[in-house]
């Protein structure tokens, strides 16, 4: 079966972003970028399913400007078969992304649609569920284990306080949690080989998706800092400080 993996290019998770002086947006000029970590889990899962002989072709897709080709090359180097960049200079929110991906799904007809559970820049965590809704397909979010037999996927999901197991009929949308797998490292020869794999640029306009821009970011700000604390010299001093706060410890 064909698997479509939708990925996003985000600021590297180790980097603490700064707010621009005018508060208009975050300053990400020259900052290290990469594949959103959860999306990397989604790519890895597709590859493992291909190694098991369940998935036959993996298509990686992202949306944005030409700079996004680097994460598609990364996906190809990991093991995706071909890649697609839906080209636009627009900033899309989750609903817009889901509408674009719906058009891609209709074109590609994948049996399995994989995404990360959340992008670590906007922390919205909506795209997979929205895509499933627009396609009227089943959804299984926060997957920590995926087992596919025939036309059915059994998915263990991470929920508050434990796990839930769902059986969804394919095609379905599944979003990856971190514990789904450990993404493989990309070796240099794989990067070289990835350059020979097909990467198609598709202008967003050619997909005839009607997009609205109903969400505006008015401003951004750094959160208030916690007031500086104090260092205590030992456990006894710590205890006396804590006892001074009413009702915290008995």
């Amino acid at each position, binding site marked *: 079966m064909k698997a479509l993996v939708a990925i996003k290019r985000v600021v590297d998770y180790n980097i603490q972003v700064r707010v621009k002086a005018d508060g208009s947006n975050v300053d990400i000029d020259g900052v290290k970028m990469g594949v959103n970590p959860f999306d990397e889990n989604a790519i890895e899962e597709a590859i493992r399913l291909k190694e098991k002989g369940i998935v036959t072709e993996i298509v990686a897709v992202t949306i944005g400007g030409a700079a996004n080709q680097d994460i598609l090359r990364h996906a190809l180097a990991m093991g995706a078969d071909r890649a697609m960049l839906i080209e636009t200079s627009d900033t899309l929110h989750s609903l817009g992304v889901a509408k674009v991906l719906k058009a891609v799904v209709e074109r590609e007809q994948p049996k399995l649609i994989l995404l990360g559970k959340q992008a*670590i820049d906007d922390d919205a965590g909506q795209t997979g569920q*929205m895509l499933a*809704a627009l396609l009227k397909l089943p*959804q299984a979010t926060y997957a920590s284990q995926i087992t596919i037999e025939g036309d059915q996927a059994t998915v263990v999901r991470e929920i508050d306080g434990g796990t839930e197991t769902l059986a969804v009929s394919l095609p379905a949308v599944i979003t990856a949690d971190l514990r789904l797998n450990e993404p493989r490292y990309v070796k240099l020869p794989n990067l070289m080989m990835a350059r020979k794999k097909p990467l198609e640029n598709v202008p967003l306009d050619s997909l005839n998706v009607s997009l609205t821009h109903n969400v505006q970011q008015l401003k*951004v700000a750094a959160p208030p800092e916690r007031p500086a604390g104090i260092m205590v010299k*030992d456990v006894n001093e710590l205890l006396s400080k804590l006892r001074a706060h009413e009702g915290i*410890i008995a």
Partner: protein
Amino acid sequence: MRTLIIAEHNGQHLNEQVARAVTAAQQWQQPVDVLIAAAQPDALAAQAAALQGVSSVLVASDAALQHPTAEHLADIIVPLAANYTVVLAAHSAFSKNVLPRVAALLDVNMLSDVLEIVNANTYVRGIYAGNVLATVQSSDATQVLTVRGSKFAAAAVGATAEVKTISVPAAPQGSRWVAEAFNKSERPALTAAKVVVSGGRALGSADAFAQVIAPLADKLHAAIGASRAAVDAGYAPNDLQVGQTGVVVAPELYIAVGISGAIQHAYGMKDSKVVVAINQDPEAQIFKIADYGLVADLFEAVPQLTAAL
């Protein structure tokens, strides 16, 4: 127009975050209804009806709602939405699974994990693991959002709202609940606990994690949390993970033991009222957000603290 709250519950009890969502919902100054979708909804409906600020409780009763899927819940919520300008829930694994599906079916955007409601369509929410606060405005006709429960006080009880039964469409065929496994614990739930004791990678092993963290948590009647590093290393189960990729907590007291305080962990605990950090590394990031820092060997300091309590 009206505001609709989607209530989370475990079949018997409303999640305590529902009362917080009710407080958040008052910001629109219009009647607030609560949807209870359950197999046996009567006791749950009574709990919701008792919350002050609730105008009416809508009850969707169906055997399939013993373990509802997002698909079924969305099919119940979407037809109701014509009567509502706001659909909201407290942010959790439950609501963030369901509400994006609802929003997309309504062809509107959604705002996740809102920290502050500025006005009827403007919100403050965290981006980049809470390192940046974004003020966002939505011009959609229906505002669909989840709110961070810890930012809103719980609504008081003592009211008696009207309870109405609504019709329930058949459960969609494509997905089926199979099983669930909850980590059984005598301790309070991580998101509701007044005190949280969290362990990090410096514990070094699952045994050490249990032997050092659990006795302190017992003494303090605390929930146990863990950093992502500790979870990844297998010292603690994933549902104890505090942070951007785990749960967000805001207890009265948060004790971070052997946790470096990476950005993604801080995201999950920096709204705690009092933060204590115990770490051998004086340069650890966690000391920058701790009210009380103790540079010490955790294997000595934590048992000492436990014994002294």
